[in-house]
């Protein structure tokens, strides 16, 4: 399951990042760390916006599909998805 599979308002923990060293470093430096809590603010078909420790980050669809999350959604606020 990846960030792209979440709905707006969902909160999860990051459990997987790309295996490639360069790509992994690219995500880590921006705040995507193992076990970090992430909240999906809203999502549309071409990407979405997440919040990690108060920082809002916009991601493309490709980026969202590269971040694996824990299997069950921790909290779902049921916000409607955009796009």
């Amino acid at each position, binding site marked *: 399951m990846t960030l792209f599979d979440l709905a707006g308002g969902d909160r999860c923990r990051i459990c997987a990042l790309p295996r490639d060293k*360069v*790509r992994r*470093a*690219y*995500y*880590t*430096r*921006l*705040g995507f*760390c193992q076990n970090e809590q992430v*909240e999906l*603010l*809203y999502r*549309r078909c*071409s*990407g979405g*916006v997440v*919040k*990690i*420790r*108060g*920082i*809002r*980050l*916009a*991601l*493309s669809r*490709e*980026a969202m599909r*590269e971040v694996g999350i824990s299997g069950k959604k921790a909290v779902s606020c049921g916000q409607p998805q*955009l*796009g």
Partner: protein
Amino acid sequence: MEKRLYLAGNPNSGKSTLFNRLCGAHRRTGNFAGVSVDSGEGHFSHGGVSYTLIDLPGAYSLDAMSADEQVSADILHSADGCIVQIIDAGAIERSLHLTKELLQLGKPLVVALNMADEIQRRGVTIDTEKLSQMLGAPVCAISALHGRGIGALLDAVTAAIVPPPCRFTAEDLARATVQRQDKETLSDKIDRAVLCPALGYPLCALLLFCIFGTVFGSFGNALRDGFSAVLASLVTLPLQALLTRCGVHPLLRAYLSDGALAGVCSVLSFLPQIALLFLCLALLEDIGVMARIAFLFDPLLRHFGLDGKAMLPLAVSFGCTVPAVLAARVTDAPTRRKLCFVLPFISCPARAPVYALFIGAFFGGHGATLLLCLYLGGLCAALVGAKLLSAADRGKRPLPFIMELPPYRLPSPRTLALSVFDRCRDFAIKAGTVIFLSASVVWALEHFGTGGIALRTEDSFLHAVGQITAPLFVPLGFGNAVAATALLMGFFAKESIVSTLSVLCGAASVTEMLGVLFTPASALSFMVFSLLYTPCLATVAAIRRESRSARTAAKVCLFNFAVAYAAAFAVYRIAGMA
């Protein structure tokens, strides 16, 4: 002896704002990650000690992943003074990774928590004393924008020493010192609405329409006409009267009045419109709109082999191509290479006088529409050019788009005013130097020939140069010596096109002369050619510096010339049929 201070930190943490406050400088700031792409140096004194302050581009890590980060990393590794890490207090957890890396450099370090006045509103509490104890380095809360806490920061810098090794991880530091309450902020609520494609794209279109309507519509034109009248009454007419009264030689009087001054004033008259354009761009950056535009347009730009981060250099190039080439450092290497080739297609304010002159002479009723088409045409040419150049990237997998969305902020009037003033000053200086020189050269070439003073235009050097190059432009509809010479001088500075036309046609009768030399179809072709052909000398120099290759700069010139020629030919043929 001066001590050196280095301002390091994540992008958009307030380094340049602090730099400007300490040094009284005017480095460009903006609410967008990636505004500073080069280091800057300034000087200030505190407590009887003189400091050299170095402002570095933002970096998430010393393990650089882009050209601007590499600049920071290289300078910090060889730093010979105290490092001041500026941290956005609202994003402290991410910044602590860089703090750990800076501690490992073994240099004196002071941590400045910037925007400390905002964090309570954002639901964040930081125990600065505990953080300082755990890091082994002083931590000061400041507000660079409002000038709070700067004195305490500088006192800490004066007493800074190399901190001991820190055994805590960044996560440990964050867990022990930061308390955060999840709060939906006003920025979240605004983004929920505007980042929806159904609303976001129309809003962007409306924004663009408002900017162009204001700058190049009746308001902007009225400002320009008013400023021209002021220049005439305060500069041109008094100077002409003075020269006559002093009995200056007629040839020298003609040079000063009809040559150099006419050329400079013809360009300076556009200063109000250019100031308006700069103000609009600065507003977009400072409020935080630019980052949202980058996110909205990332899917579109991907189709052309670029990504959302290319929005900054693309937007900056509407102001000037030279800083746009530098701004491309925030992108990855393949995107940066493509941007070097296509950024010159985007119309900068230097070309605005050309459009205004020809639109006024031939297309009076459709000015705003035609201008919008030219600006959009330049942008389209850039995107299509990037798509064509993407063929070389087949098989490569670029890094995906991830960008921080900063909170919306009300721009500081002082910062805005300084930003616009700086850019206008650069434009005016360029008019007073490069344009003055090129207008003087054109006037001299027009009035002198192989036999000394040229009594007829046909005997002048300029006529000879124009005769040699004019045939090249016959297929485009403007195969005359005047147009050819203007375009040649435009290579040195695009503003020179109008000043050259003014000198060659006579400032008072330039519109009438254009009616003789051009038809509406060839005027349109000339404008398209001016839009797309080789970049100015300053841009070529910037491309050469960034690409570290004179060959690349030459390829850019040839590529742009070829595209301009093809486009102008097509426009001339189609317009001629209409």
